[in-house]
């Protein structure tokens, strides 16, 4: 895990190393200063030697100046390295998510991916800054102080060798106990994010059912869980400081006791005892700093694991080796296709699908709610891989294409449409980065969106709020169709994309398609018979199978389901005709 995390330091390696180097210089100066201080007191002040006081004073100033200089440098590089490292990690996750297939996306909740990219990364950033600053400082001070202590009195210094391992065991126990709780804490953070996110998205439902109290209770539960878990974990960590103090105090008392006896028996001077205690304090101070690092690592370890989990996720849809990079035509063939979201043969939601569709045809798909219409079309741009059988586009297995090539050629308007915050133009450019104004207007005219866009005061520069909150459902759908058209695809799939568009406009869109883009193969999933009845062929889906396929007239003559749907809708239509 560490290796993997370390790999993302990349261009901030220099800054990290510089931090370490400057910290070492800083510490060296800091260690030198007390010597000068002792000298200043012993030979300067005690002797009342003004010249020496000034001389040594200037020496100290120089050392302190250098220490300040290196300190500022290390502070600068530490900030740069840690913020930069966080940036790289965040980027790594975001990039990784961009590679995710639909199956991968299904696996992680939005909320958890957000927590990972912010809260978790911030934890790692803090820990990293701590590590590069303190992990260098503490050992240097520790080693230096130990050496000094041993040079003064090796026997008494053995006390440190007894205390330090005990301390180590204590720390180890704390870390081991706290870690699993921190893991839980961050999972609860995901829940918290999820509750808030759902509340924000569904605020209209919440308010109209007057469920604010209910939501508050839900939130309170999660919030309470975080409180419980975090308190529990932090209570364990609260042992850290007293444990350290206990070690320091024990050492001091032991040194005092044995030291006093040694002094009395003439083995040691009182001055040496004083220095030994000073070193004892700095040894244990450096251990204290190390323990802080441990605490930070404990907290961030749980975060680090969550980050690595995303980075390690195997993307199950990969670009093939030597992929095909052109799609010849808009032919679509399904051969014995079976499909399951969980990739298991006994939970197939599509079975025995065989289709042969020629370039330029318009195919209508009709079927009840949950009859796997969407699943069927999602296989064409390889949003999911088939479980059995083969799907071919342009007479080539979709798995042989370069993914981008395939998806550029197959444009899907998803049932769950999403617009992004930004102007209409910016949203349209998703279809084609280099689209000119004329091309955009043309696409919008085809999708019957130009009229209402032009009616906006800002026209094509109208700002769309997140999720398209400020346009109506029907407007959103038409913008999404226009966006898909701008890709200039060979195959266009509309997954129930005109459900909120009025019938007349719906008819105009189909008419425009017929006239302006006859060469594109079109799949139209719809509820209204009127939306598909002009299609070259209509597929009737029922519980994951193709129940029938044929023209409107054929199906009307022979297919029971189709007849039923037709008659349920025709009633209204007939009324019109009679008027």
């Amino acid at each position, binding site marked *: 895990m560490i290796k993997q995390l370390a790999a993302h330091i990349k261009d901030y390696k220099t800054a990290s190393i510089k931090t370490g180097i400057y910290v070492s210089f800083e510490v060296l100066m800091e260690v030198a200063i007390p010597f000068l201080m002792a000298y200043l007191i012993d030979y300067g002040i005690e002797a009342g030697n003004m010249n020496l006081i000034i001389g040594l004073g200037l020496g100290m100033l120089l050392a302190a100046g250098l220490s*300040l200089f290196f300190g*500022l440098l290390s502070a600068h590089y530490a900030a740069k390295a840690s913020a930069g490292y966080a940036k790289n990690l965040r980027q790594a996750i975001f990039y990784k998510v961009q590679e995710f297939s639909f199956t991968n996306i299904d696996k992680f909740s939005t909320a958890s991916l957000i927590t990972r990219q912010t809260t978790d990364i911030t934890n790692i950033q803090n820990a990293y800054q701590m590590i590069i600053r303190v992990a260098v400082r503490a050992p240097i001070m520790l080693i230096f102080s130990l050496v000094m202590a041993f040079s003064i009195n090796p026997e008494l210094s053995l006390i440190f060798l007894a205390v330090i391992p005990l301390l180590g065991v204590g720390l180890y126990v704390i870390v081991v106990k706290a870690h699993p709780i921190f893991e839980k804490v961050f999972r609860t953070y995901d829940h918290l994010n999820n509750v*808030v996110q759902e509340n924000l998205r569904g605020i209209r439902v*919440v308010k109209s059912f007057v469920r604010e109290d209910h939501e508050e209770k839900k939130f309170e539960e999660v919030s309470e869980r*975080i409180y419980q878990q975090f308190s529990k974990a932090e209570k364990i960590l609260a042992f850290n400081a007293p444990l350290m103090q206990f070690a320091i105090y024990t050492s001091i008392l032991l040194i005092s006791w044995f030291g006093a006896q040694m002094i009395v028996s003439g083995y040691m001077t009182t001055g040496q005892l004083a220095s030994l205690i000073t070193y004892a304090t700095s040894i244990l101070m450096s251990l204290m700093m190390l323990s802080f690092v441990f605490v930070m690592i404990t907290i961030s370890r749980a975060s680090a694991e969550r980050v690595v989990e995303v980075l390690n996720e195997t993307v199950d849809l990969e670009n093939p080796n030597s992929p095909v990079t052109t799609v010849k035509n808009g032919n679509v063939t399904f051969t014995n296709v079976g499909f399951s979201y969980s990739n298991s043969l006994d939970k197939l939601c599509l079975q025995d699908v065989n289709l042969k569709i020629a370039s330029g045809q318009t195919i209508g798909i009709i079927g009840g*709610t949950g009859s796997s219409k969407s699943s069927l079309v999602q296989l064409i741009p390889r949003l999911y891989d088939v479980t059995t059988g083969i799907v071919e586009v342009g007479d080539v297995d979709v798995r042989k294409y370069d993914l981008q090539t395939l*998806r550029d050629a197959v444009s899907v308007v998803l049932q769950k449409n999403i617009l992004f915050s930004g102007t209409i133009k910016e949203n349209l450019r998703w279809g084609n980065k280099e689209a000119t104004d004329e091309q955009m207007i043309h696409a919008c005219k085809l999708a019957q969106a130009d009229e209402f866009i032009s009616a906006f005061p800002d026209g094509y520069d109208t700002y769309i709020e997140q999720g398209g909150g400020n346009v109506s459902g029907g407007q959103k759908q038409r913008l999404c169709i226009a966006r898909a058209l701008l890709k200039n695809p060979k195959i266009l799939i509309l997954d129930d994309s005109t*459900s909120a568009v009025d019938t*007349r*406009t719906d008819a105009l869109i189909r008419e425009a398609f017929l006239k302006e883009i006859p060469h594109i193969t079109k799949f139209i999933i719809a509820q209204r018979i009127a939306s598909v009845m002009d299609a070259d062929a209509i597929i009737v889906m029922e519980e994951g199978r193709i129940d029938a396929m044929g023209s409107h007239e054929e199906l009307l003559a022979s297919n029971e389901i189709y007849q039923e749907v037709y008659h349920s809708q025709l009633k209204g239509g007939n009324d019109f005709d009679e008027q």
Partner: protein
Amino acid sequence: MNNKPRFSKSTASSAKRLFSYISRKHLGAFIFVMIAIVVSAVAGVVGSLFLQVLIDDYITPLLSMANPVFDELAKAILTMAGIYLLGVAATYLYNRTMVVIAQGVLKDIRDEMFVHMQKMPISYFDTHTHGDTMSRYTNDTDTLRQMLAQSFPQIISSIFTIVSVFFAMLTTSWMLTIVVMLTVLFMLRVAKSLTGKSAKFFFEQQQSLGKTNGYIEEMINGQRVVKVFCHEEESKVGFNELNDELCHVATEANRFANFLMPFMGNMGYFQYVLLAIVGGALAVSGISTLTLGGLVAFLQLSRSFTMPVSQVSQQLNAVVMALAGAQRIFELMDEEVEVDEGYVTLVNASCENDKLVESEVRTGLWAWKHPHHDGTTTLTQLKGDVVFDHVDFSYTPDKQILYDISLYAKPGQKVAFVGATGAGKTTITNLINRFYDIADGKIRYDGININKIKKADLRRSLGIVLQDTNLFTGTVMENIRYGKLDATDEEVIEAAKRANAHYFISLLPEGYHTKLEGDASGLSQGQRQLLSIARAEVADTPVMILDEATSSIDTRTEAIVSKGMDALMEGRTVFVIAHRISTVQNSNAIMVMDQGRIIERGDHDELIAEKGKYHQLYTGAFEEA
């Protein structure tokens, strides 16, 4: 730079407000923490004086004895061990108590923020990215954790030490104390300017973090669209921009904060040298009474003085960041809430001798309770009679959306709105439940101006099904029960049957107990709509608003659903927005809307006969049939 004064002012008030969370609920525990900190600090101070005592009072006398007896020394060391143990115990207790206080405060803040957010108007949610709001619950709240649990105790302990050492210094030499104070003042000035700089950047960092959170939320939520459009590279570019910006401000913030430690530490040494020279000169020249021994003692004291000062400054890092987070939290908490001046409430009622009487138990009969100035109340039966009287409305002052809308719906009537998208249909429903307030005109509900009705009671009497279904994580059962929290399982299943959702639910792996995750991506849009209809069914309200509620349901299913709905429509007022003729044609009145005005009205037959816009809109439907 011109936002700096605004920031520092609000920083002070944020700190004060933050502290009020401690004092409000945890004052006792907090005082305990303070005491424990002082005990722990005293143990530390006594410990640092112990060496001198040890040497002067015990070791030196022992040296002069022929047969040294260590009993006294053992006693002293044991006493010291006792004091140390007390100190260790106090340290443990304050650490432990403080983390619990800190977590408690964080919880209070989170909860309060959420409760406040529930009261905010729809317009806030329509104009703020979700991710940025979410960031306030996590990233911003997190900044407070470290400060409360670690920095706070450290600072208190340091201040205690600083004060006691200060008095010790003063008794040793007031002249040198002035020197110390002068240098400390200088140090504080620089520290202030450094923290000011880092505070500004920390605030920007939290803002930038919120923005990044918003971007990530939006992109990951739309990840499927990103994939379909191969928009990965562009989405990375947008991300990199925000990420670089975040990295930049984070670097700046941490840089200035990191500067504090070396600066304060080394200034302590400068001060030391200055004292040695000034003190030496004073002592040698004999200007003051200061002896050389006194100077040595003073120099030690000055070390004990600057040490905690630099410790405090190290903690400022966390404090400054926390205040930046706190400011964003309080910003959300200070957002205006929905105004509700309504005083008419919805109560259960029963009919006694042809007179409505308020009832304690659920009777199935509801009434509006209307209090008057003279203390009397009148009860009006809830029927679902809705009247719009010359209503004008605009979301923003510069663009009017609705013009002079007048209409009525008698109890049990079905009123449909049709018209091109953007004509203002959804806006009308947003006004009935008062998501937005009208600019001019009146809306009456059972003869009562809706502004007089308490919002919660008004909304409780309205059922609503929107095109965006918005299900919640939880079982199918829980999602339907959202409409009526005390509904029994049977009631839920009954509602699902009426909405024709029962069939597909029973096919789900665990039926009604199937858990839906996030946006319920395992269900089709149509299935989600069926669930949200069932949810409204179970609420069983006298007025229903259906905004494109069945657009993704296949017509066969819709026919069945509407059969069930027709039965339910008895005694219910229904507002329908739909494009499907089958959904609207049996309405009592159909309003044809165009650019915010009602241009035609009447029932289906009348409108068709009129051969106007309605006729024109729907003759696209089956022209060749």
